[in-house]
């Protein structure tokens, strides 16, 4: 086993200073939820925004140089088109000539839309419908809650099928939800709430993961756990 082994605590003073500055900035940011807004928090916030902006500008400029400017200088004259279109975007900042910026935006939106229309229906509509209506293969377990059952394929299949029908009915607004449709739409609402609950639960899990990572970093800088 050689994967993911701990890294030794740095001995280089600059590297150590980097660790402690990062820790200071992290605690400064956390001082807002853990205490209240304060000048140290604002300093860290502004530092973060400035650093992120600086990195963003440099990285994007490098990308522009590599993909367009250098080829243009090497004789690929077609590269003048994307460079000019990119330049036109800055007319957003000039109120009277703002219309110029609409051309690159139109091309950007148009190309993305074209790609999406051509390629989205298969994974997002066709494959999803096929996946929903295809029953599990014969021989799989009925329900994972039964002891020894390897999968809950049939339960999942029925759950998704019923949930899909009920949730879709909930959004059919061309007729009043009364009579036999009413319990179906109520069930649809519960299915939607279940789905949103799962989304929210996963969101909380992600946020806790970020917080745990920062907690670990605190201990790592203090030398209490390996880097």
């Amino acid at each position, binding site marked *: *086993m*050689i*994967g*993911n*082994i701990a*890294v030794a605590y740095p001995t280089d003073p600059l590297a150590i200073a980097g660790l402690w500055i990062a820790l200071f900035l992290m605690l400064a940011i*956390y001082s807002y*939820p*853990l*205490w209240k807004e304060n000048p140290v928090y604002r300093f860290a916030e502004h530092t973060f925004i400035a650093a*992120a902006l600086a*990195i*963003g500008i440099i*990285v*994007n400029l*490098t*990308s522009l140089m*590599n*993909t367009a400017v*250098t*080829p243009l200088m090497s004789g690929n004259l077609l590269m003048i088109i994307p460079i000019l279109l990119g330049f036109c975007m800055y007319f957003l900042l000039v109120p009277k000539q703002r219309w110029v910026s609409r051309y690159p935006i139109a091309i*950007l939106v148009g*190309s*993305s839309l074209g*790609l*999406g229309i051509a*390629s*989205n229906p*298969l*994974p997002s509509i066709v*494959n*999803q419908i*096929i*996946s929903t209506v295809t029953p599990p293969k014969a021989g799989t377990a009925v329900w994972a809650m039964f002891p020894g059952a390897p*999968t809950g394929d049939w339960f999942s299949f029925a759950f998704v099928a019923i949930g899909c029908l009920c949730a879709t009915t909930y959004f059919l607004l061309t007729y009043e939800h009364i009579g036999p449709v009413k319990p179906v739409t109520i069930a649809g609402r519960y299915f939607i709430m279940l*789905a949103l609950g*799962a*989304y929210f639960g*996963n*969101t*909380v*899990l*992600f946020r*806790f*993961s*970020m*917080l*745990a*990572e920062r*907690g*670990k970093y*605190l*201990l790592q800088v203090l030398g*209490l*756990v390996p880097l």
Partner: protein
Amino acid sequence: MSGQNIWDKLQNVDRRVFYWILFVALTVPFLSPIGLPITITPSSQAFYDGIKTIEKGEVVVLSINSGVSAWGDCLPAMVASVHKVYDQGGKLIVWSIGYTDVDITWAKIKEKLPDVFSKWKEGEDYVYFGYSPPQETNVALLRDNIRAIYPKDVRGVATDQIPLMKDINGANKIKFVLSSDTGDAQMYYVRQWKNGPVNYEKTEKPPTVAELGIAMNKSGDMAYFLSGDLFGLVAGSRGAAELEALTGYKGDATITMDSISVSHILLVLAIILTNISMFATRGNKK
């Protein structure tokens, strides 16, 4: 205030008190690991089964579309995946669709795998291209012409001069795309690579895509895993811990899972207590 009972007080506790308890509780398991058991979900198993099929010399793309802030969820899975690609004898192409801090993430992956990168030769076994802007059009172009987006790697070596890229200029010689996302860039690959007009040269099937995502997106990604558009799904620290268990490279995610489990227990207790106090005081307010 003097007439408040314990349930009233519980409902009026400053939220910062809970934040502090949570922050302290999250850090304790790092000092004293509990070692809670980790079960394997089918989506992580499918990912592992997929990357086990990589044969010597086959090329895999690692698309790092997650930033430093998502390291807790995404980094351990990427580290374990890169190690597995190395173990299988595969080759690796790394780039990013839209994350300007990708250099830091790639440096961290290399730092975490010194044994791998001391043996792998840059340019022959792996190549790192860095950042490209976050557009689906870029992914569509990468499918057919990698050199148009990346005329050179981050070292400044022309792509034509990189031995690994000698015969590769598109998706047809890529076996898998392992996409690590905080957003939906994996769907760019599903739409433009897997469902695009491209066939992998060995199997004449399109290169398939797997997601190494954040837990927040698991519900949405699961639909694409179940429909077969993603061959595997490793979601969040939990998924990464499962992958570490499968590959045998116990690392950051395994350690972090204890901390996250403690936080969840704490959160469930807080929800139960808050609900009890709400029901206990409901009559009083009337």
